[in-house]
């Protein structure tokens, strides 16, 4: 479970810290940095476990415009049972030479070192925290990410596995591809590869599919099942089967024929139920987009009930009144900034007496 993120000198996030619980809803005006927090998480994932180079994921253009400093700092705290990982990354930007490099990368477990890399010199520690080998390392890559699992670095590689359990998405149904040319274990940012990811789920989490299809039957009138049909060599097309009016053999519709709302429901329920008991953390930016009003609360309550089972933690961004009223009071974090200044974060202000929280926010009366 992600307990804390710290970001300094990234867009509007300066000396910014956010702590997380099991259920979290990020609220705030447009431009208050909510999506930027998700962007940082996604980029850290790409950098550490996606083998991306630092200039591909942390370009100089994302330095805070009004800051003079050319160093960016990111920190994560991830709890696994009673253990606490602390990861930090410091990036130097040389704007004149358009060059950026990892100045420092560190990973501690319960305040004891597992790995440290500074100015291109890496120091590995064994699982018992004794010093291991020291070696020069590429300044543009994650040294933590480069390490493969060995008997004496189980704790470090467990951190990478936990990081991989963070799913950071902003689903856009219109961008979801209709078919798949292979299984994909990780979702892309806008869930473009949903069908390939679903193909992976259907292969690796077959038991979870029963639950998923059962829930989709509640959400989609007439829904029968999902099916991956051959569509050429190694290719599969996702079909949604619906019962015809009056009964009879289900009719297969191509995934691309579904409405945006239907695609969204399939994707959102797959996020909750498709991974079995993996204990994932979901970061979903505006899950309410395209959903009928009637569908939002049932999905939210299913999500809340999945906490501690298939889902370990959830962080949502939303402006929708249904979500604000359902989660905002107990689980909301309020992000705001003055003009183009840095983002501040606090608890969600109370609603005005007699008004719902969403109505309070809609009136701008939360201040």
């Amino acid at each position, binding site marked *: 479970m992600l307990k804390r993120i710290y970001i300094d000198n990234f867009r509007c996030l300066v000396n910014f810290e956010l702590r997380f*619980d099991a259920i979290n809803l990020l609220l705030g005006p447009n431009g208050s940095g909510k999506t930027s927090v998700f962007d940082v998480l996604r980029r850290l994932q790409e950098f550490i476990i996606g083998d991306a180079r630092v200039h591909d994921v942390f370009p100089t253009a994302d330095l805070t415009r009004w800051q003079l400093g050319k160093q960016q700092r990111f920190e994560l705290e991830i709890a696994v049972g009673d253990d606490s990982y602390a990861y930090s990354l410091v990036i130097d930007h040389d704007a004149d030479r358009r060059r950026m490099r990892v100045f420092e990368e560190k990973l501690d477990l319960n305040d004891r070192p597992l790995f440290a890399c500074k100015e291109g010199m890496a120091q590995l520690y064994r699982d018992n925290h004794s010093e291991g080998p020291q070696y020069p390392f590429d300044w543009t890559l994650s040294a933590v990410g480069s390490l493969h699992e060995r008997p004496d670095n189980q704790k470090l590689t467990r951190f990478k596995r936990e990081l991989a359990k963070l799913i950071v998405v902003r689903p856009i149904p219109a961008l979801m591809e209709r078919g798949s040319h292979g299984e994909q274990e990780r979702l892309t940012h806008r869930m473009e590869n949903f069908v390939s990811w679903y193909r992976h789920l259907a292969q690796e989490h077959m038991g979870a599919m029963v639950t998923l299809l059962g829930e989709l039957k509640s959400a989609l009138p007439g829904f029968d099942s999902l099916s991956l049909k051959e569509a050429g060599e190694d290719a599969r097309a996702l079909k949604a089967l619906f019962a015809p009016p009056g009964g009879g053999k289900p009719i297969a519709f191509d995934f691309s024929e579904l409405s945006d709302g239907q695609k969204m429901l399939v994707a959102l329920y797959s996020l909750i139920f498709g991974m079995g008991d993996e204990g994932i953390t979901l970061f979903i930016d505006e899950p309410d987009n395209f959903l009928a009003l009637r569908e939002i*609360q049932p999905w939210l309550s299913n999500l*809340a009930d999945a906490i*501690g089972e298939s889902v370990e933690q959830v962080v949502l961004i939303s402006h929708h009144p249904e979500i604000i009223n359902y989660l905002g*009071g107990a689980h909301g974090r309020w992000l705001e900034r003055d003009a183009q200044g840095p983002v501040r974060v606090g608890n969600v202000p*109370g609603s005005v*007496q007699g008004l*719902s*929280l969403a109505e309070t926010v809609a009136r701008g009366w939360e201040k």
Partner: protein
Amino acid sequence: MSARVVLLCEDQQLATFMRRFLKRRGWQAHDIREKIAPPGQGSGEQWVRERFPQELAAVRARGNNTVLTVGTDADTRSVAARIATLNQECQRQGVSPRTASEPVIMVVPKRNIETWFAYLRGESPNEDDAYPRYPNESDCRNDVRTLDEMCRSGKLRDPAPPSLQAACSEYQKMPARNG
């Protein structure tokens, strides 16, 4: 699919407990519409009480086997006294109080839902003391499972909190999902 159970509740923890229990009993998320008092806006009990008459009127108007389930703590009052305040509010707002035959189920933990959690964990709580809250609402899942198992066996473990016994009696009015 339309909602058949309206859950009017004074806080998230009680709503989570009630929703999870209903789901254990065969209801689905789409069957349930939750209306939960917003935190930080004064008394959740007052919020429920003030909305009870309009929800009662709406459920009556809807008919069609729709159930109103109300969750509110007794706190330091008796269960009967808390239910009486709901009926008094109906009269104040010009709505007929609920009748015994109506599908309106009052779930009134005393002192509050944490008392029932303590009982369901195997403790022997009294209904006057305050018991600790769970860090997360979903932490009540094992308690819901225990209560469901007791329901299936047809008996609460003795000595059960009287407010839980009263809620079980109220729950007898719950129709079958496919009824």
